């Protein structure tokens, strides 16, 4: 007669491996396994291990008995009777039914609303992408603004530097000599370049030796302040040149404006999309809470 815990057959004649005999020490047993034995749908492997524990360990068996007793007692626990009727009165129903603007907002919270979420996601994405591309030039390699930026920034930087150096020189000489032969610099020259009238007319402030600016420099709206700075430095030179500068300034701004206007318009449009997208999200959130 085999002793307690011994296998009824020797290992060679058994179909499966060694029977798992749990540790004799109860502290090494997992009480969660025993607690899970009461579940209606526990895994077979867990159930098997728990049954082995309960069968071989008296403390696990006691725990199992206690848990069964407690579950039954919990199930039999009398619930206090409700003290009121929860049916909804006509007044409550009128108050709870969305009306007016709440009815409109509630449309966005219903399950039938299938369009507002993708629309909100799309608007937000377009808005964010637009803002990213227009305000952070290096964010997207190969983007229009990034590609055009070096070509724009380069002459602008040159023009700005030239304007600064020349305008400082100009400001020194201008008060002393009305027709000072100082080179107006590329920025100032750029201001005079596009007007056929100014190119044809002898320009006292633009000597022939002065570098002729290219037409691209007008595309840089960054060049515009430099040009106006240079123009301001030359202002007291002569009344003729002042008139010409006035006309040139007008011409310069009218040419430089479209580039900056496009940029601002893109930023505004992107911001509008973003605001609309976020607004739609907020509307959906509010619709579920009203």
């Amino acid at each position: 007669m085999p002793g307690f815990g011994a296998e009824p057959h020797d290992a060679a004649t058994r179909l499966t491996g060694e029977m798992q005999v749990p540790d004799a020490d109860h502290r090494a047993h997992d009480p969660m396994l025993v607690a899970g034995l009461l579940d209606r749908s526990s895994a077979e492997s867990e159930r098997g291990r728990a049954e082995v524990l309960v069968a071989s360990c008296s403390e696990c068996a006691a725990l199992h008995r206690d848990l069964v007793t407690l579950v039954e007692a919990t199930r039999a626990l009398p619930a206090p009777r409700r003290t009121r009727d929860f049916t909804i009165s006509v007044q409550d129903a009128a108050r709870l039914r969305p009306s007016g603007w709440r009815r409109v907002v509630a449309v966005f919270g219903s399950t039938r609303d299938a369009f507002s979420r993708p629309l909100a996601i799309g608007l937000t994405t377009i808005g964010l992408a637009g803002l990213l591309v227009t305000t952070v030039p290096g964010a997207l390699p190969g983007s229009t603004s990034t590609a055009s930026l070096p070509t724009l920034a380069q002459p602008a930087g040159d023009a700005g530097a030239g304007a600064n150096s020349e305008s400082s020189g100009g400001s020194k000489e201008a008060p002393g000599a009305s027709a000072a032969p100082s080179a107006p610099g590329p920025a100032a020259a750029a201001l005079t370049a596009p007007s056929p009238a100014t190119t044809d007319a002898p320009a006292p402030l633009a000597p022939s030796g002065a570098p002729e600016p290219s037409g691209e420099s007008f595309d840089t709206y960054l060049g515009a302040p430099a040009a106006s700075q240079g123009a301001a430095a030359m202002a007291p030179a002569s009344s003729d040149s002042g008139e010409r500068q006035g006309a040139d300034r007008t011409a310069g701004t009218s040419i430089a404006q479209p580039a900056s206007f496009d940029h601002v318009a893109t930023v505004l449009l992107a911001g509008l999309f973003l605001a609309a997208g976020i607004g739609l999200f907020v509307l959906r959130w509010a619709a579920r809470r009203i």
Partner: protein
Amino acid sequence: MEDLRSTTVTDDPVQRRDLILLERAREGDLGAFNDLVSLYQDQLFAVVVRMVPDRDQASDAVQEAFFSAFRHLDSFRGGSVKSWLNRICVNAAMDTQRARKRRPVQPYPELEDESWQPPAGIESDPERIAVLAERTRALSGALAAITDDQRAAIVLYDVEGFDYAEIADMTGVSLGTVKSRIHRGRLALRGLLEGRMDLFRG
């Protein structure tokens, strides 16, 4: 409006009845909604009052849950109306539990009232009634002492008979978390009542 009967195929007459009532309620029939309230208010109150150990707060939670269900009739996506109502009630009970933590109250005040007795059954043996009252008091106290999540899981699984998946859906946690809460909750109850288990035997 989406026809629930056409989208949700069910052979269960109870579910079919619930779906018909719900659809009528969605069409504006308050009576149909109140029929649903009458059908489920006892069961829902029993769930919530075990989760929120204060009768008045439990009542408020159930009322708020029915208000919420009425307001959001459009959010029902088919399936079991009972589960949908239970989910709303469980959420309301959880909200109440969170609020209760900020404003603690006496749990089960009726248990401290000596005049309160559990409902008398067929047996009217005074000794038996006293034991039942003591058992109820001890178990209710232990239930109030375990965590809110464990209590909710035990009530929904052991008392109301929902399965893991339904409870996971109602409480918004994973299946494993539900199992863990049930098992830990049972062990916590046993730990709290270890010295008084004789009260529950026999």
